[in-house]
């Protein structure tokens, strides 16, 4: 894990432990800390719990899938009150370890394990992607929008399908004729760490007319943003609030509030209200949403100094979104919540 000498936030387990402080262990997915996306969101949730609830946490970043299980087991063995697994690849391992440690509470993000000591936290990414698609379709001037996925796996396809559905919805309701170009970076896990290819794919889409590109490609997203930025086009971020990464280029980010899910679960354990079972986060409970279209908020700095110029640029971009677009997104959000719109998943 990142717990090196430079990282004073992470204490050695068993040392300096404040008596009674809740102990949380987390096993991150292989993208690791610093992905400015999924894993960082999970850590953000724990940081908040540390600040607000006074808990202590310990994170592990396994380098290979096969070590997920040992990592979870290690944390359970350490007597953690709660052990969190991040990512669908941990499904099997977490089930195994949860069975071995029936007295330890577990939480799993992005997959379901049906055991009495596991809280499964999953997200309706397709709903948020629908909003992203609607926003892109409403804002495009070229009637072409793009989608870049990391690797074609079920989870990422969910993003693509929701996005396409959102565009189609606008085409139908607004009488537009927006076309979606979609592409995937690669065929292995490397696809989430290959911004160079992602950039080329984005440039290829831009050359074919796309002016707003949404991505679900982890670390490769950097390349999507760079391509959009260089060409004066726009991008839509994913998972965390990525707007700050290219101020003025990223129109919005589809937020998957892993941080909220993590924080809530930690809080539930602390409050004694933890319940095992499935929790689905969607637009309804704001576990899934777009970043605010009105103003720059929830600025996640990820360790970067905030800069007045950057904030101004982000505000400027938000101001350029017409009010009726904002209203339309608001309206769609409500329709999703009310069930009037049912977003396709597959």
């Amino acid at each position, binding site marked *: 894990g990142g717990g090196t000498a430079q990282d004073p936030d992470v204490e050695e387990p068993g040392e300096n432990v404040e008596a009674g402080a809740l102990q949380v262990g987390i096993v991150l997915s*292989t993208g690791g800390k610093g992905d400015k996306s999924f894993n960082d969101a999970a850590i953000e949730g724990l940081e908040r719990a540390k600040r607000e609830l006074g808990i202590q946490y310990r994170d592990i*970043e396994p380098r*290979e899938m096969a*070590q997920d299980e*040992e990592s979870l087991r290690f944390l359970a063995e350490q007597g953690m009150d709660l052990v969190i697994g991040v990512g669908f690849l941990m499904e099997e391992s977490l089930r195994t370890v949860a069975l071995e440690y029936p007295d330890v509470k577990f939480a799993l993000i*992005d997959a379901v394990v049906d055991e009495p000591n596991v809280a499964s936290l999953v997200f309706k990414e397709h709903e948020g992607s629908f909003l992203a698609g609607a926003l892109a379709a409403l804002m495009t001037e070229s009637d072409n929008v793009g989608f870049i996925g990391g690797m074609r796996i079920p989870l990422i396809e969910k993003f693509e399908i929701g996005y396409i559905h959102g565009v189609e919805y606008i085409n139908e309701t607004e009488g537009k004729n927006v076309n979606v170009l979609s592409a995937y970076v690669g*065929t292995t896990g490397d696809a989430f760490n290959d911004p160079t290819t992602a950039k080329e794919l984005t440039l290829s889409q831009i050359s074919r007319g796309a002016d707003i590109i949404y991505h679900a490609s982890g670390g490769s997203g950097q390349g999507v943003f760079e391509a959009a930025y260089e060409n004066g086009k726009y991008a839509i971020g994913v998972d965390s609030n990525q707007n700050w990464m290219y101020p003025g280029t990223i129109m919005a980010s589809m937020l998957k509030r892993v941080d909220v899910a993590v924080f809530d679960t930690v809080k539930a354990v602390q409050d004694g209200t933890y319940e095992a079972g499935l929790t689905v986060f969607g637009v309804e409970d704001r576990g899934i949403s777009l970043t605010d279209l009105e103003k720059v908020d929830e600025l996640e700095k990820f360790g970067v100094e905030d800069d007045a110029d950057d904030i101004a640029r982000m505000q400027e971009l938000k101001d350029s979104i017409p009010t009726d677009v904002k209203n339309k997104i608001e309206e769609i959000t409500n329709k999703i919540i009310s069930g009037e719109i049912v977003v396709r998943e597959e």
Partner: protein
Amino acid sequence: MKRQKLYDNLRELMIPLGAITLGLLVGAVIILMTGANPIEAYKALFIGAFGDVNKFANTLARSTPLIFTGLAVAFAFRCGLFNIGVEGQMFVGALAAAYVGANFEGLPKIIHLPMAILAAMIAGGFWAAIPGILKAKRGVHEVINTIMMNFIAYAFIGYMVSDVLRAPGQTPRTVGVLPSAQLVRLGELVGWSTSRLSIGFLIGLLVCGIIYYLLWKTTIGYEVRSVGLSPMAAEYGGVNSSQKIILAMIISGALGGLAGAERVLGFDRALILGFSPGFGFEGIAVALLGKNHPLGIIFGALLFGALSNGGAWMNFTTNVPVDLIVVLQAVIIFFVAADQIIRRIFSKNKKEWGAV
């Protein structure tokens, strides 16, 4: 005479041991620079790899695919071929094992399991045969084509898993292997163990024996090695070198396929995308560490397995970044490769060990 031989063997043994020691010393310096305590770290490394029966079993489990991929690389090497494509061959082997393992319900284990393993070997062998044939018949350098076949394999597996053999749910994986095609795990034999070490490890040792036998005790091995050392002389000796090149690639690929089968039928019980942290590439290092000899490969694989698992534990308990282990692995390979460094150190101390 006997005594001399003993000395010679001892000296050969000193090289890997010396390399590991020197590698750990270099690692210790790096650990010190990060502000951690190397002794603590190495204690954790050792405990993580061998600390208890489960950990030891996990180390063996981590080594198992490396035995197969190491053998795969070595076998091709013996025929003068550099097979960088073991990773891809392992992938298609895994796919075949996953497909056969998940289907054909009702077959008895005695048929189903060998069938799944065989399917993996055939698939891996087929995948390697293509660069083999292109090398033998068209003279195309096998390095390029095995690299290309890797990329094609990744894409092909991705397609098959996401479009054809997809299991329900979010995980990109095939449906689980039926019990009749599963390699039994240690954890299933004895209740107290959690390890996913499977009988595949023993198969690995057995296959090492078979490959040793094949290379040095059969005419096939004789011919393969003769092509590897001198294609012209082999041709003179009536050896059809094109045929041997293709055969060696097929056997190499089949060994790669076995690595996939073990993961799918034993360790993971399904093909999960991302199951390999690069076993095929680590196999190159293992083969070279083991001097392309089955016995050496077993030790190389164990070393890599131990470092990998021990490194994870070291990270758990001392917070030294686990990637240090990768650096360590590289340093050890350097020292084994540059064995003259170690020979020099020993010959300074022990003059009678003679000329270097």
